[in-house]
């Protein structure tokens, strides 16, 4: 059990990233706040043994709470429709059939955030969370596997699918831009 002071320190340090993570999973402001509060309430009674960082431990609690709330198992499709889109970019020999295009110049932060927002909404929750934990929170692969409860190989598949779809989606927007 953590001391009240340690809980307060954890709130100060981690509530912001957890809140953004819950919002990023598509929950409303009110739901995200409730999920973060429940996460810290669970921490009060949990046994944190220091096998991961406290932040990774909290991400794990939050992720399970998000799944419960959504009542989705977060199952991954054996064949993902995005895989075909990726394959269509190449000739059978593995050469580029349609080489990558854009962005011509770096977008500013607000513009980039707006562009990717819609693309992220279309991702399945587990792919989105794998991508978010790696790219936004910059968690180590082992920590992401721990949070999502997946193997290292499965994580690579999740990240491949997330990045391949997001890249394809953004490329369409870059070309129009």
């Amino acid at each position, binding site marked *: 059990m953590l001391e009240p002071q340690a809980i307060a320190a954890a709130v100060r340090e981690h509530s912001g990233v957890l809140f953004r993570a819950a919002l*990023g999973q598509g929950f409303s402001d009110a739901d995200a706040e409730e999920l*973060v509060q429940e996460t810290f309430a669970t921490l009060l009674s949990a046994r944190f043994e220091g096998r991961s960082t406290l932040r990774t431990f909290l991400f794990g609690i939050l992720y399970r709470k998000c799944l419960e709330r959504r009542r989705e198992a977060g199952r991954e499709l054996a064949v993902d429709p995005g895989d075909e889109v990726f394959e269509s970019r190449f000739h059978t020999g593995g050469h580029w059939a349609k080489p990558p295009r854009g962005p011509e110049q770096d977008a500013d932060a607000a513009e980039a955030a707006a562009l990717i927002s819609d693309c992220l909404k279309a991702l399945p929750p587990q792919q989105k969370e794998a991508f978010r934990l790696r790219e936004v929170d910059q968690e180590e692969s082992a920590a992401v596997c721990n949070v999502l409860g997946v193997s290292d190989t499965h994580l690579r598949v999740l990240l491949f699918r997330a990045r391949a779809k997001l890249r394809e989606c953004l490329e369409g927007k870059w070309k129009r831009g």
Partner: protein
Amino acid sequence: MEARLTGLFSVGSCRETAARLAAGVLETGGFLERLLLRIHLAICPPCRAFARQLAALSAAARAWSASLASPARLAALEKKLLERLT
């Protein structure tokens, strides 16, 4: 264009390279895997463009996350949680 060094070893097709880049092998792969990717990237402009797109994706995701809640909203949340939990 397919980058391939003849002779000693193959550095993989563009399809394999793009798939490995998207899976994050450049950050988390073994030494040899990363080396082969780097060699392929050094000689293949389309795959370098693909890698640049992935980097732009990463930057966009960080900007998106930051845009989800303002610092003022986070401060208000922190205050509320501290009152309720401690």
